[in-house]
């Protein structure tokens, strides 16, 4: 017998992922629904008797009416509209017990689907603490399905749920609600057509008919089977007829459902008034402080400060270990293989490409861990509320805050985090400006330029931090400025609304955070890794061919390679910025990953040894570099300009690839390259020309 397929559905923030983890443990698979950027979580749970049950964790949604791709996927899987995912045999519906009124609407929609449903009342402890008592037995009788109280984060109720899931005789809900007589013919006609033309089972067809009539079904994503033309026709006719009669049946149906929800709740929910206590509840006061115009900002800035300190200081140690580990690996390959192109391809192409990816893993892990921690305690939602004001000024909403924050470590996870933004224009704008936030790959470039900029053997910490902060703020203001511009021109539209549920304050669950961190990190490794790796190999070839006579130094080799030619080809365009062909080679070679600029400078100025760990020899070499006419190449103005160039220019092909994957179009990534690199050129041109006139 085939293992039964369960779908896990529920609102966002109802503890669905925690329950999914509790049910399936480590037996999970994370993939993608083909054609849409929505993660597919599948796992296997085992009953008390070892019987396997397949569980699909569907994206969280507030109802079956879908607005974002996430919600569309959830609806399509339940309605059996996706060929890549089997229609679930049974449904586990999770609701937040402290909040039954709001969640029941979706539960009723799901009961209509005509599949056996198990209702899980999660967070029973929270409900009881807030004075809500639910008569579970009564609810079970009213709906006619198993109702299981549960505290998924503490593992309570999981065994009962598994027992219910392994029952062979899971009942269909007895709950029926009356469809107003006037629209019954429309439901019947649509249901018949869905059965005959779209091949749907009778109950599913009825549910889908109701859904088509009441809810807005215009978000369609790739992989979703379209309606049969006849069904579409019937739907159109009825909608036209209603609008001619000037009766909004859809609203009447929705209101009828809400009335039903109200009726159930008055019977099963008992609410003790806990608000009568002296003073305001602690949570209210905490919310007030955290979103306070003064205290809120102080707390916000301190937390963000700590987060950045963590990213840049804690990560330094593992980054050094990875660096020396990869160095040792390359040395070992050099020792074990005879010299030749293959050896160089492995050490200078593949291994250095791999290093360019793995080196950022510590920072990214720390970032994801911190974000996970802040999310699970409930603070992140409050931070988004604080930022909503600022984001609102440039036409975005608080939802864009987390993606932009992640982009300080790396734009790729930032862009992937935009999936939760409902508004298409908001999401595109966020994707377009995210790479302007100074990511950690720009750091090595900034550090080298600061070293070359400031005379003396060591750079005072204050100067270093000052210049660094300047670069970060230029990037941030650039991102906000462009967001403002795009929302008024290219992606013009009404300013977006923000509605965000504030999760309850909770002690974080380490297991969930670590699991989420690993999921996100592996997505990063896979998405960015493949691009960086293949590009590094290509760039290696550009620098290694055509071959110079045997015995020539690496400097001579690079000068006469294709990369050198490209640098010289580029020189006329970058000369007005104060850059020569050697810097041009650096710009070309760092197109895959910005930090490659530093090692290229090391090769081109013929500096032996590890340029990354010790910038002193390279710095001195840069100071001695001159134009053919003898004047200094790396004047303070040029160093500063080069930093500015890296703030704005789109020097990261992995980001381009991810933007393509997320937007499903070449227009946006192409536009992004043009506007970012264009801005870099204009800004550097103006700064260099004005700076020269001013005598720098």
């Amino acid at each position, binding site marked *: 017998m085939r293992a039964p397929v369960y779908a896990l559905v529920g609102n966002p923030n109802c503890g669905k992922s925690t329950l999914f983890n509790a049910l399936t443990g480590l037996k999970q698979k994370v993939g993608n629904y083909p054609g849409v950027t929505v993660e597919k979580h599948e796992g296997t749970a085992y009953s008390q008797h070892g019987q396997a049950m397949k569980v699909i964790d569907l994206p969280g949604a*507030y*109802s079956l*009416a879908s*607005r974002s791709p996430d919600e569309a996927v959830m609806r399509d899987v339940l309605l059996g509209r996706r060929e890549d995912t089997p229609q679930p045999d049974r449904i586990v519906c999770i609701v*937040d017990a*402290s*909040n039954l*009124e*709001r969640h029941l*609407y*979706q539960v009723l929609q799901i009961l209509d689907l005509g599949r056996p449903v198990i209702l899980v009342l999660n967070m029973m402890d929270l409900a009881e603490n*807030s004075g*809500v008592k639910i008569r579970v037995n009564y609810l079970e009788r009213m709906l006619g399905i198993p109702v299981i109280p549960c505290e998924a984060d503490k593992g309570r109720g999981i065994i009962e749920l598994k027992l219910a899931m392994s029952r062979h005789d899971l009942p269909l809900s007895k709950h029926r609600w009356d469809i107003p007589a006037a629209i019954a013919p429309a439901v019947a006609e649509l249901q018949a057509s869905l059965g005959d033309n779209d091949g749907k089972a009778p109950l599913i067809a009825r549910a889908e008919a109701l859904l088509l009539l009441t*809810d*807005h079904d215009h978000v369609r994503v790739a992989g979703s089977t379209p309606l049969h033309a006849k069904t579409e026709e019937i739907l159109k006719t009825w909608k036209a007829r209603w609008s001619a009669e000037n009766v*909004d049946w*859809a*609203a009447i149906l*929705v*209101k009828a459902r*809400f009335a039903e929800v*109200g009726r159930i709740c008055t019977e099963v929910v008992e609410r003790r008034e806990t608000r009568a206590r002296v003073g305001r509840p602690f*949570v*209210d006061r905490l*919310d*007030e402080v955290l*979103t306070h*115009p003064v205290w809120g900002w102080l707390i916000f800035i301190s937390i963000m400060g700590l987060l950045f300190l963590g990213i840049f200081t804690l990560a330094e140690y593992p980054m050094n270990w990875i660096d020396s580990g990869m160095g040792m690996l390359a040395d070992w390959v050099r020792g074990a293989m005879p010299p030749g192109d293959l050896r160089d391809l492995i050490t200078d192409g593949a291994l250095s490409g791999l290093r360019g990816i793995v080196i950022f893993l510590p920072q990214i892990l720390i970032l994801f861990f911190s974000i996970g921690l802040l999310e699970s305690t409930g603070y992140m*939602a409050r931070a*988004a*509320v604080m930022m*909503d*004001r600022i984001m*609102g000024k440039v036409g975005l*909403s*608080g939802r864009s805050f987390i993606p932009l924050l992640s982009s300080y470590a790396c734009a790729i996870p930032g862009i992937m985090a935009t999936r939760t933004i409902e508004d298409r224009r908001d999401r595109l704008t966020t994707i377009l400006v995210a790479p302007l936030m100074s990511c950690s790959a720009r750091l090595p470039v900034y550090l080298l330029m600061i070293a070359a900029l400031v005379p003396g053997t060591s750079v005072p910490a204050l100067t270093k931090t000052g210049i660094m902060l300047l670069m970060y703020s230029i990037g941030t203001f650039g991102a906000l400025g462009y967001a403002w511009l795009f929302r008024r021109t290219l992606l013009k539209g*009404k*300013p*977006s*609304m*923000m*509605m*965000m*549920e*504030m999760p*309850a304050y909770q002690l974080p669950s380490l297991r969930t955070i670590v699991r989420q961190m690993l999921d996100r990190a592996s997505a990063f490794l896979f998405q960015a890794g493949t691009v960086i790796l293949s590009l590094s190999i290509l760039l290696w070839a550009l620098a290694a061919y055509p071959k110079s006579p045997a015995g020539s130094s690496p400097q001579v080799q690079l000068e006469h390679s294709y990369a050198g030619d490209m640098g010289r080809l580029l020189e006329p365009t970058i000369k007005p910025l104060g850059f020569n062909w050697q810097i041009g080679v650096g710009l070309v070679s760092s197109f895959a990953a910005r930090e490659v600029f530093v090692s290229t400078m090391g090769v081109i100025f013929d500096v032996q040894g590890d340029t990354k760990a010790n910038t002193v020899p390279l710095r001195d070499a840069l100071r001695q570099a001159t134009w053919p006419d003898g004047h200094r190449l790396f004047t303070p103005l040029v160093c500063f300009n080069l930093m500015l160039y890296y703030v704005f220019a789109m020097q990261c092909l992995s980001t381009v690839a991810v933007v393509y994957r997320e937007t499903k179009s070449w227009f946006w990534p192409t536009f992004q390259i043009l506007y970012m690199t264009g801005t870099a050129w204009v800004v550097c041109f103006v700064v260099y020309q004005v700076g020269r006139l001013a005598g720098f």
Partner: protein
Amino acid sequence: MSSESQNQADRVPLSQLLSGEKGRVYDLKGEATVCARLREMGFCESAVVEKVGGTFTVLCQVCGTRIALNSRAAEHILVEKLES
């Protein structure tokens, strides 16, 4: 003042409630999709909303949940002020 006009005066957009004040949702205005979304979030007709705080972005309590709405969303919700 007649009781009718008294009622009118007590009907305000949610954004105009003061912190700590309660109101009962009596109508949602705007596009159907917006209204449906608001209902799903708990702002269905006759629900009681309490404003917790915030100015531009409003924090409020509805159906036992805390929800943040920015002013552009809050203006779609019309409430009748309740005596606290």
